[in-house]
């Protein structure tokens, strides 16, 4: 399934049409977030074009997860704007209403570092929960779509298994299928392979790469530089709650402009 082929409501005509066709799927301006008195995001600006992949890299505690969580509305930013898919721009100062937050959440789907599958539901139930219960789509139709997605990631036989019966790599693939089944415009990945045993990482990264080739728009937090280089259209280096620099993978990884980026890359490449 590619983002183009699920039957979505046709884009509205006129002005909205041209906005929906605009290259930028995600536009973030001046996003700020504090926990108590600690400023975690200073002022984040991001633009992700339709069908492209943005990789976020940066040291631990720099705010990468927080950026994703704000994009999905799991954390409420306290300043700035987020605009997904040219729908209403969300302003965070003052805080947006519940309904607006729900719209924001509807546009994107997240894949978690620790999968966060629902342990009391089978693989298939995990996947159809959102589309059937929340989006109120037809169960039979959703199930057929879910089975096709599971087939694609090689988990057809596991459809009636519970998450505890799966390996980490299989769970994460279910996590990805669960996100896809929501038919989001934007996929968010938070270190999707960092909880996996090394030999299971490959399957998951390969799947994400396939999704990128199919034209899904994604923001991926990752420590896998090689993967980021291959899959990302753009890499942004986050440190101390700001985007220190961003650019095409080959530029940023090979010739970082900022000293901080250089040091970070050096530490990743030569950990000891």
């Amino acid at each position, binding site marked *: 399934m590619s983002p183009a082929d699920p039957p979505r409501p046709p884009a509205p005509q006129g002005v909205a049409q041209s906005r929906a066709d605009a290259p930028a799927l995600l536009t973030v301006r001046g996003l700020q977030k504090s926990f108590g008195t600690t400023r975690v995001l200073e002022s984040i600006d991001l633009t992700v074009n339709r069908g492209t992949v943005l990789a976020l890299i940066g040291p631990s505690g720099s705010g990468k997860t927080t950026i994703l969580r704000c994009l999905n509305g*799991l954390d409420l930013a306290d300043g700035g704007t987020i605009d997904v898919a040219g729908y209403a721009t969300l302003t965070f100062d003052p805080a947006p209403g519940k309904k607006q937050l729900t719209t924001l*959440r509807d546009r994107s789907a997240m894949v978690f570092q620790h999968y*966060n599958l*629902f342990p009391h539901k089978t693989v298939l139930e995990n996947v159809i*929960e*959102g589309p059937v*219960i929340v*989006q109120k789509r037809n169960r039979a139709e959703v199930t057929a779509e879910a089975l096709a997605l599971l087939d694609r990631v090689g988990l057809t036989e596991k459809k009636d298994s*519970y998450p*505890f019966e799966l390996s980490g790599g299989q769970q994460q693939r279910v996590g990805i299928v669960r996100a896809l089944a929501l038919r989001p415009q934007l996929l968010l990945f938070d270190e999707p392979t960092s909880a996996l045993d090394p030999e299971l990482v490959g399957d998951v990264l390969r799947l994400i790469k396939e999704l990128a080739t199919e034209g899904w728009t994604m923001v991926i937090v990752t420590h896998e530089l090689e993967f980021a280089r291959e899959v990302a259209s753009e890499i942004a280096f986050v440190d101390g709650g700001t985007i220190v620099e961003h650019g095409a993978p080959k530029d940023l990884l090979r010739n970082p402009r900022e000293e901080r980026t250089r040091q970070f890359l050096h530490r990743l490449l030569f950990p000891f």
Partner: protein
Amino acid sequence: MNESSWELFVSSLGPLVLGAITGTIPLALSSFAIGLVLALALALMRLSRQRWISNIARVYISLVRGTPLLVQLYVIFYGLPSLGIVLDYWPSAIIAFSINVGGYAAEVIRAAILSVPKGQWEAAYMVGMSRSRTLSRIILPQAARVSVPPLSNTFISLVKDTSLASLVLVTELFREAEQIAAFSQEFMLIYLEAALVYWVICLVLSTGQGFLEKRLDRYVAR
């Protein structure tokens, strides 16, 4: 045991079991059911971000847990009528026990809800669920599994606590025993017999707990 004691034992078994079936068990079951609903409401109130709502629940739980059950029973039985609220024995007993169970089970349920990892809330929000739907479809089913053992304890305690209802003249197992004992003067025999019946009820409950745990365990690694 001589022959006449044995006969007394056998002839008392009927009334005692009947007392359990018509008194102890329905009293415990209905109080537990009402108490659980109350407990769920209190647990959710305790978890509310609204300070005053959580404080109401906190005070309630503290009062229930900080005062003797017998005193609570007497307040309902003899206190309420003095305020002009006159209830029958049974409803009064059920109210008193429900209030009590509600307070204890609330803390159990709250702890069980808090034991569900935060990631479950986030995944549910991510797929678009509201807070209440997340609770009912994702959090509570998982909390249920965790709370079966402690809630079973609460229930088993309740079954035994209903013997206090004999003090406010509700006909149940222990009140039967008291009457038979007073009449026959065979205190040791009859009270031990009553204890035996309580024990059998609790054994059955423990077995039921085992089954329930097994059923809820189907999605957990063993």
